[in-house]
């Protein structure tokens, strides 16, 4: 499968989108970025994304709740959780609730690209690198 991968990034820190969007655009992803999780949820109501990258701690809605909503509506969507406050409990909760992967900030765009590639592979998209 060589279709373009739709990715939505949700993080209340604008710098995250500023850094990650071009890095993912470069590997052929179609990326949308939101700083407001409620606006992101509204967008997710309209469109199914292949991959959701969401911060855990956000104003308005936390990433775990967002993960549950995405899982309920789009079971095939891969959700990657990111956080600056990673703990063992949080990692296990995210994993148990169906997160595809969990990564602690700070990370390099290349680290996320690697996880996106794995998620793409599990979705049957092989030309992401």
């Amino acid at each position: 499968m060589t279709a373009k991968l739709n990715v939505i990034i949700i993080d209340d820190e604008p710098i995250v989108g500023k850094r990650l969007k071009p890095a993912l655009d470069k590997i052929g992803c179609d990326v949308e970025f939101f700083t407001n999780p409620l606006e992101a949820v509204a967008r997710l109501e309209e469109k199914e994304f292949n991959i959701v990258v969401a911060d855990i701690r956000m104003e308005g809605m936390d990433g775990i709740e967002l993960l549950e909503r995405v899982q309920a509506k789009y079971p095939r969507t891969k959700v990657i959780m990111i956080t600056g406050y990673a703990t063992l409990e949080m990692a296990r909760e995210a994993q148990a609730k169906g997160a595809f992967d969990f990564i602690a900030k700070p990370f390099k765009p290349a680290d996320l690209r690697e996880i996106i590639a794995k998620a793409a592979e599990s979705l049957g998209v092989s030309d992401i690198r």
Partner: protein
Amino acid sequence: MSIVTVSRRTYSRGKEIAEKVAEVLGYECVGREVLLLASKEYGIPEERLYKATHEAPSFLGITPNARKRYIAYVKAAFAAYMLKDNVVYHGPAGELLIQGVSHLLRVRINADLEDRVALRMERDKITEKEARKKILRDDDKHGKLMKWVYGRDDTDAGLYDLVINVSQIGVDKAVEIVTSTVKLKKFQPMAYSIRLLKNIELSCRIAAHLIDLDPDIRVRSESGNVHVYAKASGRGMKRTPEIIKERAMKLPGVKSVEVHMSEDLFERIAGEMR
């Protein structure tokens, strides 16, 4: 693709359960191997490392600083083993040596005293009285070791993900519980837990290579960027950071080293009195 640590007291069938879990999962079962690796890497006889990690401090035993050094070596070897993944560890303090890694399942095996006594009588061909006395003595020594050396009481259920009383559950069922728990999604490696384990392994390896400079040295690593916290006194305040940087930068995986020094006031006062 996970790690299981099995903690237990003597004659609780913990080793037997660890071995069976490893067999079912196709994982490597390690205990003594960690000491052998540490012995090979750091040139300390295995027997000394065994004493440092298994025997409670005593007046004529290993000095506190030597014990700290040996434990740093064992910790580095343990972390290296854990990095290999697919490992079941049944040596001491696995749940304490590495903390915070989400794909590490920490299991505690308990057994009723009567069953432990019966097992010891059978294995060692001794009377009930002798077996009971030996088990209680071992428990007392082990409790002191955990408290003095690792600073924790390993009977605290809060240290584990799973606590099983094998006297009630049985060995086979215990194996089944452990093998099915480790397969749960929450115990699978993630980018976060793999990176954390890599950071821990590097920190432990660096600490083991620097521990002769300061027995209380602390190391924190993040993707190859290393922070070392050490103390020294007098001229050591200038020389020690240079040695730390020089030695640490030679180790594989190290990108940068920042040294944070504090003055060893005890050593300074002792020096002034000499």
